[in-house]
């Protein structure tokens, strides 16, 4: 079992508040990803969970046990570091055995665990090598192996793919997903890469400025973003946000005309932000179409699609996914139609999602 409860977690370094009250419930066997722009506090939160930094205020419980004052080595938590942090003077076997021995395990048990881990991670031929004789991907596997031999309740991974080249990254990502299924503990994974977050996570914690913006499954985050930050952070290319004024069932955009929509938010706020993903819009050169008017700025041809970037009347730049055959020169006047069903509504005042 590994159920984690974080309530009101705050962290300040001297007078700088880094985390402003984090509340999270993480269930056993869950794969949770902390994602957010750099400086959002996700790595700090991970270090608090690990025990490497002290919690300024708030409570952290693991399986009903208060962890705030427990030493990192006694929490039943293992961590894989961004730089892997292997002990340079020990070979691969020693790197894995070091922590296991310190847990007071019998010699046989240590050997058995290393054997299991090295089979699972294909480390057998490397056991006698020193870290400097390994490639990045191999070091990564050793770092994971070192964490696994301790059989932790919770495995923490701090941007584990950031030091690998692009080709290796997707392999290791699959490997981590497989390991999580096989080991069956709770895994917390920190990244700034939303693709890693979306592909790996059961649930994602989106963080910004030391706060949790939303905690939910990848599908929830993508389909029902709680606010404009999550809306633009998840999804690539990003969702376009338009400041519109509601008039009956019309949404007016200054300088670009108005469109009528079949689905509106329940709130009666007049000033709204609408969010539209690149695939929820179509671009047309037929001036009589009902939609927002604008001018093409540039197009990106990507083989299967072309992204058309259009400047609207109020200066907003929107990206639209179109078929690859579309080829519009810059400055072409176009009309953008929006699929009503796919519009996300947010309050202009609070930037929070409005139910529609």
């Amino acid at each position, binding site marked *: 079992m590994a159920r984690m409860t974080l309530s009101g977690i705050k962290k300040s370094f001297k007078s700088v508040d880094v985390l402003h009250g984090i509340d999270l419930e993480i269930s056993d066997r869950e794969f949770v990803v902390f994602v957010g722009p750099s400086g959002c506090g996700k790595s700090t939160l991970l270090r608090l969970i690990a025990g490497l930094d002290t919690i300024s205020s708030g409570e952290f419980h693991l399986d009903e046990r208060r962890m705030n004052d427990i030493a*990192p080595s006694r929490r039943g938590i293992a961590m894989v570091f961004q730089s892997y942090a292997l002990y340079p003077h020990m070979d691969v076997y020693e790197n894995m055995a070091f922590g296991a021995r310190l847990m007071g395990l019998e010699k046989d048990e240590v050997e058995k665990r290393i054997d299991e881990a090295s089979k699972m991670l294909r480390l057998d031929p490397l056991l006698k090598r020193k870290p400097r004789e390994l490639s990045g991907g191999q070091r990564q596997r050793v770092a994971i192996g070192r964490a696994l031999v301790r059989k932790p309740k919770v495995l923490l991974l701090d941007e584990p793919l950031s030091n690998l080249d692009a080709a290796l990254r997707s392999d290791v990502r699959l490997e981590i997903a497989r390991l999580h299924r096989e080991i069956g503990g709770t895994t917390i994974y920190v990244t700034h890469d939303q693709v890693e977050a979306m592909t790996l996570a059961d649930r994602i914690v989106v963080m910004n400025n030391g706060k949790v913006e939303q905690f939910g499954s990848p599908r929830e985050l993508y389909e029902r973003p709680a606010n404009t930050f999550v809306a633009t952070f998840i999804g690539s290319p990003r969702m376009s946000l338009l400041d519109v004024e509601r008039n009956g069932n019309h949404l007016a955009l200054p300088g670009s005309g108005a469109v009528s929509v079949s689905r509106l938010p329940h709130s009666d706020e007049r000033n709204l932000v609408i969010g539209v993903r690149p695939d929820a819009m179509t671009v047309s050169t037929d001036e009589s179409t009902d939609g927002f008017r604008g001018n093409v700025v540039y197009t990106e041809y990507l083989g299967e699609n072309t992204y058309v970037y259009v400047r609207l009347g109020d200066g907003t730049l929107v990206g639209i996914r179109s078929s690859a055959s579309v080829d519009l020169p810059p400055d072409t006047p176009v009309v953008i139609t929006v699929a009503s069903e796919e519009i996300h509504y947010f309050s202009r005042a609070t930037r929070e999602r409005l139910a529609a």
Partner: protein
Amino acid sequence: MPGSPLVSRRLWISALIVPPLAFVALFVVYPIISAFAYAFFHWNGLARGEFVGFANFYKVLFTQPYADWTVNAFLHNVWVFFALMVLQNGLGFLLAYCLWRELPGAAFHRISVFLPVVLSTIIVGFLWKLFLHPLFGVVNISFRGLGLGGLAQPWLGQDSTALWSLIIANAWHMVGFPTLVFLAGMQRIPGEILDAVRMETESEWTKITKIVWPLVAPSATVVFTLLFVGSFNWFEIPYVMVGLEGSPHGATDVLGLYFYRTAFGNMSGSGQDFGAGSALAVLIFVFIALVAGIITFKLRAREIQI
């Protein structure tokens, strides 16, 4: 062709390299070689006599009273080396560890530990001689003030404490050096490696012995080798604090004093013997070079790239 860029470049390089090379040759290489040569001659004062082969070496190693003096001084150097290894390097390592862990007041202590190192050895010697004065020294006054008058000793005046007093004065003076070298070594250890250890143990002892110590091996090589050379060349502190005779009656005699006394004579009038002195200098040089070479070679082998 004069004036061409290549020629003027060569001239420049020569102009920069030749003077220091000449300087080193004249003031370092030449004296060493001539000391080797002097050791094989008989000397009358500073006038060179006939070639005597290894007679000077035989004299200092196997004839009395030289042989006893040589062994006595050599054993004291060995003592000094091991005592300083513990007091100076051991303490230096621990101080470096404390400074590195940024305990409260680290900035102040970093300076205060290193401050004595920049003092001249002569000043430190006189300072400690005053500290240890039997009547007016701050050490004995402090003991008496604390009601521990029984611990007050004539530190430099009795066999049992004289050498130790010198060793402590030297450790006080130089402890900042190994501290600084170890601290630099520790600061090269990546923070994440330390975090990784903290995830596996909370024992400071395990962290120090299993992780930090092996990772500062390059610093240890430097510090050990320099301490070895320094211990067997030890001269200034004993010279200032106990004089050329290594008083009281040879209890603090070390190779440096003994060589100086033998080669150049001393106030109390014993004759000077340049041949025997040179033989001693050569022996000291060869011993230090050999052992320091072995130490460096052995310790290099356990260094690893971080």
